[in-house]
Every structure is written in C-alpha cells, then in structure tokens.
C-alpha cells in the first residue's frame, strides 16, 4: 500500500457536468495514485460513468480540470487517452469474433505500419499475458473464448498500448467466482508493476476484497473521497452509497411449494448461429418457489428462457399446468400467464423510442380496460401507466418520456411493473439485477420474494451466485446446454456450484479453464 500519499498519477478536480434536468457530476474530486487499486462505488445514476467518460475524453466537463502526472489535459477521444496511458475496459467488449486474440489487439494501432508480422506480435502478446498472469492463447479466435478470456483480451489490448492507468467498468458482472479470483490476481500483479487500476463496481464485497482505497458517489456527489479500505466496512459503504441503512435481510415466507407449474422435459434447441444450445434440459418449477438457474453466459440459459416464453423453437416438451407450451407463439405464453423479464432490457424488454406509457401497456393492450374493441382507450392506458409508475416508483419526468431516457434501474422497474401487473402464474427472470445498483437490486429481490409468497412459480436465471443463493429455494446448474447439478437451498455451496458452472464438475478443473483453443464450439459462447 502507498503511504504517505504520493503524487497522484491521475487527478480530477472540481469536475462539474450537467445534463438537462440533472447534475451528473457536482464538484467531484477523484485521484488515483501509482500502484493502487481505487474503487469507485455508487448506484446507477450516481455519476460514475459520467466521471469516467470525462476522464477518458468522451465528454467535456462544464467546469473543473483533469491532471495527468500534474499536467492539465483534455482528451478528445479514447485514442488520445490511451496514447497518454489511460485505458478503459468497458462492460461490453469491442472484439471482432472471427479474428484472433493478437489480431484484435493490433486492430486500430499505427504500428506495425504496413506489414503485419503476426508471429512477432503473438510472441509479444504472449509475454505480456504471462507477465500479468493471464492465461490467453494469442492465436485463439475470439469466438472460441469464454467471457472471462475475452475480458483478458480487452485488458491486454490496453496494456499493449501502454496503459499505466486502467479503468475497469463493472468487470466482474459477467464472471464466474473462479474467474473473478483470477482477474483479481491479474489486477494485483499490475499494481505491483506500478500501474493503477480504477475499479468501478457496486458490489460491496468485491470492492472490500480488492481495493486499496474507495471513493463513493451518490447523486453526482462524492460521499466518501478515497477512504482507505481498512478504515471502512460494508455497512458504512452501503449507507454512503444509498443514503440510508440497507436491509441486509430480506423478508422471506417459509418454503411451501405447491403444484408443479412449469415442467421442462428433455428439451433441445439451437442458438441463433444454428449450433446446439440446449441438449436435453429437464427441470420443473412449482408454485410459490424460486428455482435458481446458475450458469456462465453462453451456456444455454438465455435460450432456455426463450423456449419457455415462446420466443424460440425447440424439440422436447415444455408444459405449464399440464398444457403444452413449447413451439407456441409468444402471444400464447403471455395469455397463459408467463411473465418474462428478459436479459436484454433495452433491446427486447422495452421499446426505446416509445413512451413509458406505451411500454407499460405492452402486454395489456389486447384486453380491456386498455383495449376497447379495436381501439386503445387512451385514458385507461394512461391511468394504468400512472398507477404502475407510482406503485413501482419509476423515476421518470412523465409517462410520456421515451423509455430510452430511463436509467437501467428505472427501466427494470418498468419491466417488472409491467410483468407483475399481469398477475403471472410463472415468471422467468433472466439476469434481473445485472448492472443495477444496490437500491434497485434490493427492490427487485423484494419483488421476486413477494411474487413467491403470492404463489407464482419463479425461474431465476442469473450469473450472480450470491443472488441465487440468497433467493432460490432450489438451485440448478447449467453447463453447455445441460443441467449438470441440482441442489436444495440448504446444501448449495458456492464453490461446488462455481466449479460446476465452469465445467469442472465431471473432471479436471484446470482443463476447462485453460486457454480454450480446443474447447467445443458450444462453450465458446456468444
């Protein structure tokens, strides 16, 4: 650890950035010292992304200055930022799937000027990866890699460009527990090398585990400025983040499952690329229980949700209350009371340029009171939308606001409001809290438990094991399109599940985590 405070490598002073109607950054101070991991913690909409986008040159601050090694800077593009040693790894990767690791790393560079000497570059990439303990085959194609490996490529891309300061936006959101530990080792070896890491997150446990110092933001302001991790606690951080005490314990009624609502038997389905994604999945969900489906992205869980909700064709049997629902139109699934909280909130779960009201009636417009014959009763639709907006505390200027202007947490509130309002018998929730802040996560969890108490059968598909373990009555683990393990809530163990999720259940753990040039295409993911 670095004491007494050395000169910061990067410093932001008095940053102000206002968007219409909101001050995203209000006199924010932030600094990163050489060789430290500095976590930036905050809810969605707290201003973390705005601050990072200002640092990386995507936005221009209204006031304040940024100093790199003591000199004022103003980047105009990420390219300039990385040229100065400031690199950012975004949550969504920007890799070309059909190209190799090395080719992706070279992409967009000025050197080599003309002739690619891929062999030479591969050796360089390999050395760099080894230096920071990252297991990546420089010759592997991106599409063959797991999400965790792809993230390593993104990090390597920045290191190869000479990044001294690495900003990582929610890096653990897509990783399995073992991969997170591996990422943490890499980050520590980078700081040991004198580089700095800005670690953006809203997972308190992780931040406590990895950060040297922590800055907390709330509503555009800094509520804790670079406090040392040793001097704080989870409860303290949560309070600074949310502005009130966070209930750690969720109210939970005793486990009293009813009839089997959803029964999936030996279902096979292909993914969008025509490759098998589900290979004989069987499971069932009873009324009043939450079944957690743990899987790393790309192992068929998205396809499973689509099969159940009528959005994907399959072979096999999916019954709800005894009636066959497989290969029926999505409209029938809705009519039968299957609610679906999709993985892709902006692309599937909402229509970005339609109003909040239009988005809220998406599954109600066919029936009274919203429908009046062929027409839509505007008054009834607005009344419904206003009611849901208030009941679920959707923060929006009005119900006429376009959905794309809502924050992630509020959009998820909108989707939950709509899906629950239909009074579902079965709810399929996919990654319902990914990218949400503590307050919104708590709200989603409470809503799921309320539905459970009300007798809805819930299939919760998530990569967040903490979430699954705290909510689910039973846990199924999926790997490469099959259910590879089932646990009752009592016997579920995070390490056993993590191992099964990464394909380590049957045999040698190392074999599956090694650079996967030889991995079967299905595990290669997305």
């Amino acid at each position, binding site marked *: 650890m670095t004491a007494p405070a050395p000169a910061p490598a990067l410093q932001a002073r008095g940053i102000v950035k206002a968007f219409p109607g909101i001050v995203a950054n209000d006199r924010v101070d932030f600094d990163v010292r050489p060789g430290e991991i500095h976590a930036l913690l905050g809810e969605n909409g707290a201003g973390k992304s705005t601050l990072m986008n200002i640092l990386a040159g995507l936005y221009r601050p209204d006031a304040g200055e940024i100093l790199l090694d003591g000199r004022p800077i103003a980047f105009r593009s990420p390219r300039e930022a990385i040229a100065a040693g400031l690199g950012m790894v975004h949550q969504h990767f920007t890799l070309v799937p059909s190209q190799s690791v090395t080719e992706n790393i070279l992409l967009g560079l000025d050197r080599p000027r003309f002739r690619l000497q891929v062999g030479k570059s591969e050796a360089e990439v390999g050395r760099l990866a080894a230096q920071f303990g990252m297991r990546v085959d420089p010759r592997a194609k991106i599409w063959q890699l797991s999400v965790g490996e792809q993230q390593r490529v993104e990090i390597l891309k920045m290191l190869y460009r000479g990044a001294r300061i690495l900003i990582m936006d929610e890096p653990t959101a897509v990783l399995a527990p073992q991969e997170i530990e591996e990422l943490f080792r890499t980050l520590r070896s980078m700081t040991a090398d004198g580089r700095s890491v800005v670690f953006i997150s809203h997972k308190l446990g992780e931040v406590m585990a990895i950060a040297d110092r922590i800055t907390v933001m709330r509503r555009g302001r800094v509520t804790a400025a670079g406090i040392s991790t040793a001097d704080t606690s989870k409860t303290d951080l949560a309070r600074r983040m949310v502005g009130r005490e966070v209930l750690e314990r969720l109210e939970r009624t005793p486990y009293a499952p009813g009839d089997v609502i959803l029964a999936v038997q030996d279902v096979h389905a292909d993914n969008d690329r025509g490759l098998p994604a589900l290979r004989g999945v069987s499971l069932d969900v009873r009324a009043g229980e939450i079944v957690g489906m743990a899987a790393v992205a790309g192992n068929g869980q998205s396809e499973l949700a689509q099969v159940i909700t009528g959005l994907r064709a399959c072979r096999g049997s999916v019954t709800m209350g005894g009636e066959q629902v497989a290969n029926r139109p999505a409209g029938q699934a*809705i009519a039968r009371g299957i609610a679906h909280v999709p993985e892709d909130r902006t692309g599937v779960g909402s229509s970005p340029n339609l109003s909040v009201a239009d988005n809220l009636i998406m599954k109600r417009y066919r029936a009274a009171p919203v429908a009046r014959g062929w027409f839509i009763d505007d008054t009834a639709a607005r009344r419904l939308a206003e009611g849901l907006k208030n009941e679920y505390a959707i923060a929006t200027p009005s119900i006429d606001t376009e959905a794309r202007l809502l924050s992630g947490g509020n959009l998820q509130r909108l989707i939950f409001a709509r899906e629950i309002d239909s009074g579902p018998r079965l709810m399929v929730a996919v990654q319902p809290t990914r990218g949400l802040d503590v307050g919104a996560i708590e709200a989603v969890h409470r809503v799921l438990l309320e539905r459970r108490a009300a007798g809805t059968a819930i299939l919760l598909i998530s990569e967040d094991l903490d979430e699954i373990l705290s909510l689910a009555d039973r846990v199924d683990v999926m790997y490469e399109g099959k259910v590879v393990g089932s646990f009752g809530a009592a016997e579920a163990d995070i390490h056993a599940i993590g191992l099964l999720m990464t394909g380590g259940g049957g045999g040698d753990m190392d074999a599956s985590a090694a650079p996967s040039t030889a991995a079967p295409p299905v595990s290669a993911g997305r």
Partner: protein
Amino acid sequence: MTLRLELRTDAPRWWSGALTIMAVVFALTASGLVIAAVGGDPIRAYLHIFEAAFGSVGVISDTLVKATPLILTGLACSLAFRMRLWNIGAEGQFLLGAWGAAAVVLAPILPAGTPAIVVIPVMMLAGALAGGLWGFIPGILRARLGVNEIISTLMLNYIALSWVQFWVFGPWSEGGFQQTRPFPPEAWLPRLTDLAEAYPVLGGLTVHLGLIFGIVAAAVMWVVLERTRWGYEIRLLGDSPRAARYAGIDIKQKIVVIFIISGALAGLAGMSEVSGVVHRLQDRISPGYGFTAIIIAYLARFGPFRVIVASILFGALILAGREIQPSGIPAMIQGFILFSLIASDVLVRYRIRIHRQSPVVT
C-alpha cells in the same frame, strides 16, 4: 478546431419539425445559389414558381391535381417506412392500380352504361386490389423467405411498367397508339368544374374526388396508427422488432398486411389518376409519382397529415416545372430537398459541438 457529434438527451418535440423546415430552407438557398450561378435571379425564379403554383384559383386547383396522386403514394410509402419496410415500389403499385381500374371499363368487367355510382366504387376496388396484389408479392417474399424488399419492389416496378405497356400497345390500344380509348363519363371521378353550370365560378377547376380520397386516407391512417391496437403494434414493430416479438406480435403477418395496404393505397392513387385526370390508360401515365412519394414520406417524417402538406409543395414544384426555364430547376430543387433532409436526420439525435482549443497530450 474540430467538429464532434454529441448525443442529444433533451430534444424537444418540435425539434424534428423545425429541422425539416430548416432543411427545406437550406435546400431552397442552395438551389438559389445554383440558379444565380447560371445567371438567373433566384428571388424572381422562386416568385415565379410560387405564382405558377399558387397565383390564382385555377393554378391552385392544378397544384392540387398534381398533389393528389402524391398524397396517396406518399401515404403508401410512409406506412411501410414506419415499419422500416422499404417499399420503393409505389410506382409499380400505382401503375397496377391504374391498370386494374382501367380493366373495369376496358375488359370490360362492368357492361357499358353501368351508372357512375356503381362504376366508380368498383374501379376503386379494382385499383386498390391490383396495387395490393403488387404489394403482397414483395410482402410475402420478405416475410416467408427473407427476400430484400428494396430489390423486389424496385424490380416489380419495371414489370408493372411493361405490363401496362403491353396492354396499351396491344389488346387495349386505340388504333395502334400507346393509349386506350377514353373512358365513358360514368367512369370519371367528379370534378369541381362539373358543377360549373350551377356555380360558374368553379368552371375550369379540375380538382377531382381523388383529393378527398387522399385526405380521408390520411385521416384514417392517423386514427389507425395513433388510436388503435393495430396501430400500436405497428409503432412498436417500427421501433423495435425484437420488443414486438417479445410482446407477442406476429411480425410476419404484419409485414404482409402492411405491404398489401401500402400497395392498395398506391393502387388507389393510380385509379384516381386514370379516372380523375387522364380518363384513359396510357403509357407514361406517371411522371414518377411513386418515386417522388419516397421523398414526400421522408419530408413528412411519415406523418399522415404532413404528407398532405409535403405533397402540395411537390405538386407545386412539378407544376412549376412547366413554367420556368431551364426546366430542370424543379427537379434539382427536389434533389436538394431530399439531400438536405437525409443530411439533417443526424441532427435529430445529435448536436454538433465545435472544439477550439487543441488538447495537450503527453
């Protein structure tokens, strides 16, 4: 100094309308510069265009006659474009509609001497059906086989053109000329001038009932899109097909239906033109109404009532084309307008930021 695009988060509702007007003003200014460059006086040229299109009741009537097929084809394109279905086959659907309406008289489907009250509705139906069929073909191909509708609708235009030519040069030709015999008066849409006996002031005004078709169609389209379940589905589908599928909407069926309606509207335009203006089927019955409709749909940003306004503007430009020399000027203005509109589109969502100071990069 550099220019950069920044996402707008606060575009007010009127912004896209204001941009459209600014784009038109820009196009007129640019065209004016070209007119000046070739030695003309742009102010006088525009005044002349205005005079030629709106200077008297007579020419306003002529402008509206030109606007009528544009309104209907413009609506046809707007409807399809809203769902991001790029039907650029309104021209062919227009021709088929004209042919279908003509067939009622010439085949003949109805015997000679059938009263207008029967002939006109049957012609409307025939025109809409023929146009709708010409829309159904690319629609079903797109929905079932994923055939790109831009290619299929474009190619169907040429088939339609040859089809009409076959009939006017061949079976229906009047003495070997590239036109059919004139329709009997029962097959004519009523015009204002038909009332001249009772109201002499209406004499010579050729505005016909087709204009009312256009206005009614625009009103119906607005109500359907903004007030019905079906219109809600179209809006949802136009914005996000994946969200629409998630909401349980049958996308394939919608594609086919939209193409049929789009084609039927263009077909009705063809019917209105042969029955209201030309009174016979002939080669070159359309000076490209179906293509101008694409520009109109964009100018109107797919809004039904705005289509009427844009059509009148373009009707005026077409009319003025006869009046001002060189006669390429109105076509150039049209081109400038489309160009400016497409260029201005980016400003609906983005603002341009000018950065003056150069950054320090260490």
